[in-house]
């Protein structure tokens, strides 16, 4: 059994955990982070894509609004390339109640969220598909953000500052000393999900940043905390119907925001209490509700093509909370278990928003400092993560770079403009177990055909890498460092075709274990999972073609090694049984 010693162990590779690893490493702590799957596999990779201005919370939750606008400004600097400056509009539709717009304006003034009322005509010039029957429009500094890229870039920054990031490592138990009254958490038992090996990581402080799963970690040492899983469903349209974030100007509710992210527009979300944060079935009424609500903002949107639906779970912490989950606080919960439950060495951070992850990380490490002693001050608010110097994301950048560099013939994923070398480099530069991991790095398979044409091509590339890697063991230096699959971690430029003109010179190594048939089956299943809830019309036509390609032409259902499984094979299956505790609204 392997043993690792560190000062701070972070559990959870979402935005929050990765942010903590970055912050703590910059302050000079020795840090290790474990994530049981790929980074952002949890809620962070299943969110709506909105960099909040705070506008949404000015009436209901002013403190959140203040935090949002502050972090909105900070992230535009520290994570510039992960953010598109779309701007946002709050629109009053004929259905929206009387005095809210005035409260909204007042709330913006009080919380410092910049808000500028513009004429309906000006709004329609900017967004011609907007409902022409709206009566008032307010402009706010919303944006859209790529949480995959942001988290990976943060992880790279953390590594550069000395942190170790271990993905596909799950905490299965906490290491504890002492008994009742002086219990202390001194580390965690960790399972390498790929090799099956168990590792003990000893740390002076364990930080539980597992979001909606937080109660499971504290449960390991008998601390009952209530994290309400609130499932939110979103649907993505095949192309951007709007280029500005569109919000309903009313009390936050279901389906009242449309966010243009990359090449799609996403309508969201629902909010339903569920028992299990893991298996999230999307109910037909949820999809219908999103489209119906979307119609109120952009009439006709429900007739446009939907490519996909997915759901994430909100980790909503509230002590002794039993009500409806939308009303639980959006503020984050930072739990000092020594003070709260008499268990030393463990801190839980949960709740909050993607937009405020950096602030949450700062406050969490501040608390750890209370126990571990002062080091350097927090520097994350002024430090740019790698890649930020590229400036803000703009929609056409890939198309532009592909044309300037004449890469049209190099495309593997044609819908999202991913080249062969982008995929090779993604595989080599950070740990890759499934094609889904590469999807998060470069957007493979995220366009209209949902993997129909790129899956077999990408599998071929990984197969080649795997063959090159066979027999090529870790280098001496790597053995010395003891790094596992946390390869090179150079993800800052993975999204840019221009920065990946040539394949990384490093020889393939960690790809040796990849099995092409399994990669293919897993990814097809994963894409299928998100398409199943919206299978009608044009996407149905698309899936029929994809089906012909894989099931008829390639016989993908009967490839050798049908019994083999990856750590995610079961997760990708679409479970058709309804979630517990979900009820259709009356």
């Amino acid at each position: 059994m392997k043993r690792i010693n560190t000062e701070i162990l972070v559990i959870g590779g979402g935005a929050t955990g990765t942010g903590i690893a970055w912050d703590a490493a910059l302050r000079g702590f020795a840090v290790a982070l474990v994530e049981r799957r790929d980074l952002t596999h949890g809620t962070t990779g299943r969110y709506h894509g909105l960099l909040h201005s705070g506008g949404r919370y000015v009436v209901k939750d002013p403190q959140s609004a203040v935090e949002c606008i502050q972090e909105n400004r900070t992230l535009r600097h520290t994570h510039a390339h992960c953010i598109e400056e779309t701007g946002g509009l709050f629109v009053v539709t004929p259905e929206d109640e009387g005095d809210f717009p005035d409260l909204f304006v007042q709330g913006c003034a009080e919380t410092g969220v910049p808000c500028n009322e513009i004429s309906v005509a000006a709004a329609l010039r900017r967004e011609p598909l907007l409902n022409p029957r709206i009566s008032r429009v307010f402009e706010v500094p919303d944006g859209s953000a790529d949480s995959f890229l942001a988290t990976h870039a943060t992880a790279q920054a953390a590594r550069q500052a000395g942190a170790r990031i271990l993905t596909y490592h799950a905490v299965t138990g906490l290491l504890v000393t002492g008994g009742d009254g002086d219990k202390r958490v001194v580390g965690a038992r960790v399972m390498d999900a790929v090799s099956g090996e168990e590792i003990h990581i000893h740390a002076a402080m364990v930080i539980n940043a597992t979001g909606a799963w937080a109660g499971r970690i504290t449960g390991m040492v008998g601390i009952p905390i209530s994290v309400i899983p609130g499932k939110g469903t979103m649907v993505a349209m095949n192309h951007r119907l709007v280029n500005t974030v569109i919000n309903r100007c009313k009390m936050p509710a279901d389906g009242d925001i449309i966010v243009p992210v990359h090449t799609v527009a996403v309508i969201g979300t629902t909010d339903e209490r569920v028992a299990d944060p893991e298996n999230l079935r999307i109910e037909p009424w949820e999809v219908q509700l999103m489209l119906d609500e979307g119609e109120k903002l952009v009439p006709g949107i429900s007739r446009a093509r939907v490519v996909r639906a997915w759901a994430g779970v909100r980790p909503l912490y509230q002590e002794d909370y039993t009500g409806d989950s939308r009303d639980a606080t959006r503020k984050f919960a930072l739990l000092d278990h020594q003070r709260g439950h008499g268990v030393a060495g463990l801190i839980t951070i949960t709740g909050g928003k993607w937009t405020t992850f950096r602030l949450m990380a700062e406050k969490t490490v501040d608390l750890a400092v209370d126990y571990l002693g002062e080091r350097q001050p927090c520097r994350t608010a002024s430090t740019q993560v790698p890649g930020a110097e590229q400036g803000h994301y703009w929609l056409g950048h890939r198309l532009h770079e592909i044309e300037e560099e004449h890469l049209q013939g190099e495309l593997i994923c044609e819908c999202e403009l991913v080249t062969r070398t982008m995929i090779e480099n993604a595989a080599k530069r950070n740990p890759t177990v499934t094609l889904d991991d590469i999807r998060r790095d470069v957007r493979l398979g995220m366009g209209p055909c949902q993997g129909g044409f790129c899956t077999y091509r990408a599998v071929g590339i990984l197969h080649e890498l795997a063959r090159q890697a066979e027999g090529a063991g870790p280098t001496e230096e790597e053995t010395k460092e003891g790094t596992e699959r946390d390869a090179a971690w150079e993800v800052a430029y993975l999204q840019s075709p221009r920065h990946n003109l040539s394949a990384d010179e490093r020889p393939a190594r960690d790809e040796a274990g990849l099995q092409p048939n399994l990669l293919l089956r897993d990814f097809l299943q994963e894409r299928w999972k998100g398409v199943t809830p919206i299978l009608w019309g044009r996407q149905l036509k698309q899936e029929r073609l994809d089906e012909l390609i894989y099931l008829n032409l390639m016989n993908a259902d009967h490839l050798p090694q049908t019994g083999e499984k990856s750590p995610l094979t079961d997760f990708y299956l679409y479970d058709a049984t309804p979630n517990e505790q979900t009820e259709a609204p009356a």
Partner: protein
Amino acid sequence: MHTTSWHSVGPSLDECIKCNICTSYCPVSAVTDLFPGPKYSGPQAQRFRESGQPDTPDQAVDYCSGCRVCNEVCPTGVKIAELNARARAQIAKEKGIPLRNRLLGRNELMGRIGHYAPRLANFGLHNAVSRFLAEKVMGIARQAPLPYWSTDGSFGAWFKRTQKERLHARQKVVYFHGCATMYYEPFIGKAAVAVLEHNGYEVIVPPQNCCGLPMLSNGEFAAAEGYHQRNVNSMAGLARGGYPIVGTSTSCTLTLKEEAPELLDMHSPDVTALKMGVWDIFEWLRELHEEGKLRTDFRPINLKLPYHAPCQYRAHRVGKPALEIMALIPELEIPESHARCCGIAGTYGYKTEKYQIGMDVGEELFQFVREQGDDVTMTACDSETCRWQLEHGTDLPSRHPIEVLAAAYGLYDLETRELTSQSNSM
């Protein structure tokens, strides 16, 4: 242009299932790497083009010739060529329109200017020095087949001059001649009038201007809108009155029928009335034939006449009516071309940087003609610029099917392109 779905062709990008059929048919991407193909430049790139962007994301779409072969083969109905035309218009808006494209877009103006002194104009344009200068200064390819101004007056002047001789009848049909017939090839219009009158129809030629297509394909949407509106003002009433409006230029009729309303988002009742009233002349003659009303007193034409249905014509989605009608002519042998495009695609092949692409695209067609043997002395094609390109690529004269039909009625001489005395006495 803000968002794709704002205009009428945009939403069709949602239909794309990425099958690549269009890519495998596009005649341009088959011969050059400068154009990445219909799927790439159309529905695919469009998803990256929305919103005010810091830079124009792609310019290769300018290499799309607009031939619409892609639309013809797409199984799901994506309006690829129109998406491309829209994207070109956006580039034109951002980067400006070169003088060359403005000139090529205004062939009506050129036609009118030249026709006042056609011999001088022909000399002025068709000498080595000026073609050299046109290439250097403006980027109009030296070798490309520019037309000659008619030296015996415009079609309009002839029509007015011969008013007394024209047939006056209860049944009437409206003729849209287009700029090429007006200034360069009045004989096409004369043949059309002769055929229509031979079938007992009085021909009305209302005031009309350029259909606007050259401007549309060069991204000058605002100008095209004015042109189309004037045509609508002049002809919508006739269309409402139930008069068929027929044209001999397949691209003009396509523009009136479909391209202008769609690309320019013009959907007024008048625009729609005109749209519904327009026919390609052979489409209409075929209808007449199906009703048993087309005169079939044809003289045999002993000729092997390779025929190319231009891509603009195929975009009408009416089959190949000219072929069907010509097939009625005794002894006329018509080998049918299946080439995708002649390569000129309106004004495309005139541009220096695109001339060779146009010729390479056309090679499929030229070769088809050569393969028909040495006894071929002439070809046929409906569209004017295609005919000029066909002549340029094969060194054989080319005729409009309406000329062939007029000749079969004994009204027209295919060699000299003049009406026969018989027709004048009608």
